[in-house]
């Protein structure tokens, strides 16, 4: 049976508008008997009628299954098309693909999340997953801090989520590049927020955002004493198959779709990646 490239039908149950550019699409597999699970950091290949496929990271935690969130910024043809869709519409998914964040190694760690823009999407699942573990008091993390940078106050996504996280004890600090008259918070790059952070040997930093942001945040974390193994990021690359065959995300002797997209800085340093400049 030639089944590798056949997507599984899924239904959009809910759409949450994060800002003008980003919406979260809450999906559920049409066939509820189908076994499906994943870990934070993994991604799906999303199919839309007449649009083909795109690689999208899962922004929810597996603890929220059977619902699966995809937070999508309007960037190309497919992403623009899903922004026009309504709840009840049908899409196709293949996956999950890729290596997840090493969530099993987070117990007893202080997690420092550094995100820019849509970069919060793949990290969101990790925060939700760790909060769930904390509630169970099982292998839980010591603390969670989020540094989140957006271009302007109206670009800040996931506001509802961030409010909930704060109530659950996640230390969330927001900054914008350009303020408006109503903005009371920090203004400046997300790296500036690192000034008030302490890095210890218990810190694990999870970084995701535009390549230029990743580069400067990593450099700053390293200078603050964070080790290469304790800095984790996730790369975005053009992908077609998602399963290590098509070659598009080839990175030296690695393939981002199977060896990543989650990499430690120690791993990245062995490769020629633009995120490190």
């Amino acid at each position, binding site marked *: *049976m*030639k*089944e*590798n*490239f*056949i*997507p599984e*039908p899924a239904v959009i149950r809910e759409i949450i508008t994060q800002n003008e550019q980003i919406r979260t699409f809450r999906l559920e597999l*049409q066939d509820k008997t189908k076994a499906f699970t994943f870990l934070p950091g993994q991604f799906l290949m999303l*199919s839309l*009628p*007449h*649009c*083909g*496929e*795109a690689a999208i990271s899962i922004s929810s935690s597996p603890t929220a299954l059977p619902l699966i969130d995809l937070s999508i910024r309007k*960037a*190309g*043809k*497919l*992403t623009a098309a899903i922004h026009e869709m309504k709840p009840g519409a*049908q*899409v*196709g998914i293949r996956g999950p693909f890729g290596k997840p964040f090493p969530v099993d190694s987070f117990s007893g760690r202080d997690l420092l999340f550094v995100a820019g823009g849509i970069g919060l999407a793949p990290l969101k699942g990790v925060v939700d997953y760790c909060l769930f573990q904390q509630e169970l008091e099982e292998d839980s993390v010591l603390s969670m801090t989020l540094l989140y940078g957006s271009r302007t106050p109206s670009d800040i996504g996931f506001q509802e989520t961030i409010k909930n996280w704060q109530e659950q004890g996640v230390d969330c600090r927001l900054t914008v590049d350009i303020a408006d008259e109503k903005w009371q918070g920090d203004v400046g790059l997300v790296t500036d927020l690192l000034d008030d952070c302490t890095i210890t040997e218990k810190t694990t930093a999870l970084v995701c955002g535009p*390549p230029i942001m990743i580069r400067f945040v990593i450099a700053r974390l390293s200078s603050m004493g964070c080790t290469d193994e304790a800095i984790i990021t996730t790369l*975005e*690359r*053009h992908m*077609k*198959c998602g*399963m*290590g*065959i*098509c*070659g*598009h995300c*080839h990175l*030296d*002797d690695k393939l981002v779709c*199977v060896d990543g997209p989650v990499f430690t800085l120690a791993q990245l340093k062995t490769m*020629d*990646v*633009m995120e490190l400049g």
Partner: protein
Amino acid sequence: MIDLKELILPKDNLIPLLRKLKKEARLIAPVQNAYGDTLFSEISDLDSAHIDLDNQPQSSLKPFLLPQQEILARYQVDKAGYTFTPPEDEQETIYFGVRSCDLTAVLYMDLIFSKPVKDTNYYARRNQSLIITLGCNHPFANCFCEATASGPYLEYGYDLQFIDIGDCYFISAGRIKGADLLDQWSYFFREVQEEDRKARYQLLLEARGKFTRNVQVAHACRRLQKEPDPEAIWEALSRRCYDCGGCAYVCPTCTCFSLDDMVLDDTQGLRLRSWDACTSSGFTRMAGGHNPVDRRCHALKRRFLHKLKDDFARHGKVSCTGCGRCIDICFGGVDITTFIDLVTAVEAS
């Protein structure tokens, strides 16, 4: 070399044997067309087809096992929803007259399409194939398979290997499927005599001495494993690359592909897999236009390092089979042998 079976096929029996095989399966062989081009083609009529075993086929088996464009699924958008249907099953195919380099390329494709996930569409075709190779007694002008350890004769991997020893073929069965074929049609063959073995060995030694190109593949590989990437070479080569993708298309081991949907009408379409080339600028470009690879200086970097460095690190062997097809296709003169020559010419740092 361990073979399951060895026999001799008198040349007069070749066409009668192929006639029998063609009754049971689709038969593909190198055929010279009206324009003088030799291409692997399906044989519809053995009496009229000009099976050309003297010239190097301009194409490899890649277009058969990984078609230039392939339907992966048909999709439907209607009241029933958004549904996909896989394509039909494949038919049994016998490939005859395949050169050692091209069989080596098939073994490489077997690897790529099986790890970490088995590509069901590729293997649907591969499992229905039987490959009969023809050892090369006369390497062609651009050949360097000896330097890539993929010829002129093969040690393993074929179902059957034919070696032309004059008025007959020395035949070795490397896999069960090949041995079964010999059993099934045993009356076409005779037993191997000592002089057949001697003739075969003599021809192999002579073939090895007939290569005209000296391409230092092993030297280049060792250097690429140990030394920093040769940045100056990329820039020099990239200036002469015109982004045509020809090298990747004729290459029997270039398997990168793209997936796209083709809309047929409002309610249906096709999901297609098509050949792609990592040398082209759009290969790594993401939605929104961002591109992590600077093509001006790195147009050829991926392709050459993938074949000579990364695959060596990942699989323990290079993925260039020395077929030499990219040499004639590149009008910029920046084929893989140019790169190997430049890498090996640099003084050790």
